[in-house]
């Protein structure tokens, strides 16, 4: 094939595939600005005839979406901060500190990755009920405060820290926590960002566990509320698309801004495993 033609074909296919992949998201945005019932037409309209914010107004004023988004934000933020604290310290210790049984414990943790989270969900629900954490932020946050994947990610990254650096600090009489906070954490900065965005996105998008542990409307996260709303408003597509927009846009923007870190973590977590 002649090189210019080949180039046109490769890039043409990329443009076409990207357009198809992005189309549902763009269309969601377009429909969210349509008048109620406007999308129920044949052929389906691509752009709103008269763009309106009515769906967003209804979503926040009547359906209480602002409250659910605030729930999601609070839960995802708390989970991110807590899991950073737990996973960074543990991952660093598995990489750089000596203690009896270190390798065996770490291997056990990796083995636990094989067990699907759903196996634990039923007793976990009973445990949460016993702790009075059902229908509370805590019920969603507490089980996710530390995770094997996060610890693994930090350990992989922290192994590149030179031992001499830590030894020198110890000789200077610095305590282990001081070394961790002053020397190690700054070096771990890229993986801190990676872990933060991973945890935040996973928490924001999570569905099954919040669905189980939150049943009181007051505590619902945005995805759980959206699923419930869609059952009430089966016909109101424009409203539901507005609901999808406000649920997706925060995570999409976060990803686009920090994608370098996200993709780095994705590769660190799988290929080098």
């Amino acid at each position, binding site marked *: 094939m002649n090189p210019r033609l080949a180039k046109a074909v490769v890039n043409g296919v990329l443009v076409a595939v990207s357009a198809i*992949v992005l189309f549902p*998201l763009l269309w969601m945005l377009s429909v969210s600005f349509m008048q109620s019932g406007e999308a129920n037409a*044949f052929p*389906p309209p691509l752009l709103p005839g008269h763009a309106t914010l009515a769906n967003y107004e209804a979503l926040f004023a009547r359906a209480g979406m602002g409250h659910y988004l605030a729930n999601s934000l609070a839960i995802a933020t708390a989970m991110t901060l807590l899991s950073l604290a737990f996973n960074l310290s543990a991952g660093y210790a598995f990489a750089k500190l000596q203690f009896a049984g270190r390798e065996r414990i770490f291997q056990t943790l990796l083995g636990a990755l094989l067990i699907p989270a759903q196996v634990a969900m*039923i007793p976990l629900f009973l445990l949460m009920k016993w702790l009075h954490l059902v229908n509370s932020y805590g019920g969603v946050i507490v089980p996710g405060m530390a995770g094997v994947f996060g610890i693994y990610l930090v350990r992989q990254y922290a192994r590149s820290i030179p031992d001499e650096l830590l030894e020198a600090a110890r000789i200077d009489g610095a305590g*282990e926590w001081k070394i961790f906070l002053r020397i190690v954490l700054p070096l771990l900065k890229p993986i801190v960002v990676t872990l933060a965005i991973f945890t935040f996105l996973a928490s924001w998008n999570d569905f099954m566990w919040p669905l189980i542990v939150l049943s009181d409307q007051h505590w619902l996260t945005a995805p759980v509320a959206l699923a419930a709303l869609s059952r009430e408003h089966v016909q109101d597509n424009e409203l539901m698309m507005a609901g*999808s927009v406000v649920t*997706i846009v925060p995570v999409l923007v976060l990803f686009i801004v920090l994608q370098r870190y996200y993709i780095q973590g994705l590769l660190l977590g799988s*290929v080098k495993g």
Partner: protein
Amino acid sequence: MSSQRAAWTFVTPAMLVIGVFFGLPVLAAFALSLTDFDLYALADLHNLRFIGLTNYVEVLQAPLFWKSLLNTTYFVAVGVPLSIAASLGAALLLNSPLARAKGLFRTALFAPVVTTVVAVALIWKYLFHTRYGLINYTLGQFGIDPVDWLGDPHYSMPAIIIFAVWKNFGYNMIILLAGLQGIPVELYEAARIDGASAWRQFRHITLPSLKPVLLLVGIITMAGYFQLFAEPYVMTLGNPLQSTYSVLYYMYEEGFMWWSLGRASAIAFLLFALILVATRVLLRIARRGGDDA
């Protein structure tokens, strides 16, 4: 040994969280699966009885379990190869030296991965709408009659598979792209000098080099796809005629609609065993393939 003690203070908090909120529940789930834990036991633990393997026997005799297993297996058997094929195709395109603006395309193709399942499932539910959906409209342009995607038991699972491929292919695309970039350029140069066609280069250099990555991606994707739940929950409620009812959906309903928590735990363990067996099979196939090569 103060440094030992310091190390433990770093590790213990995370270990406690994982132990109490994951390890313990997993063990408890097994114990629970051997009891008749239900709404009465939930009210008063004195109503709890040890019933041995009865839950497993009953689940394995329930037609609905086999139905859900068949549906889930269908989703995995068709969805995983399709997803990986899409990922590989996209990775090959992005890896082509001819491709421009790679970063932009990569972001575009990856975007669905970070979206919220529930929200995008609602979009696709509407795209699949029999009368007003854009998919049937597009098919209509090619003279194809409208398909009742989410209302016809023959098309409901294919619709969910199409949605899942769209949602997930970007993840493996990134991993495969890294794998492609790790293949030495010299291999292709040597092949080109020998006059090997693009297809033969793909068949004899790209695929064998990618094999370990493909296996890894296959196992991760398969384990994930066995956990099908949110898609049917939002798009079809497991219908029509329970054609999209998955094993996890069954566990969810047994556990949190009927509060048969003992039986739901047994279902969870059966799913776990299924994933382990499927992983073993995949590894064995890969190893056998390796011997031939």
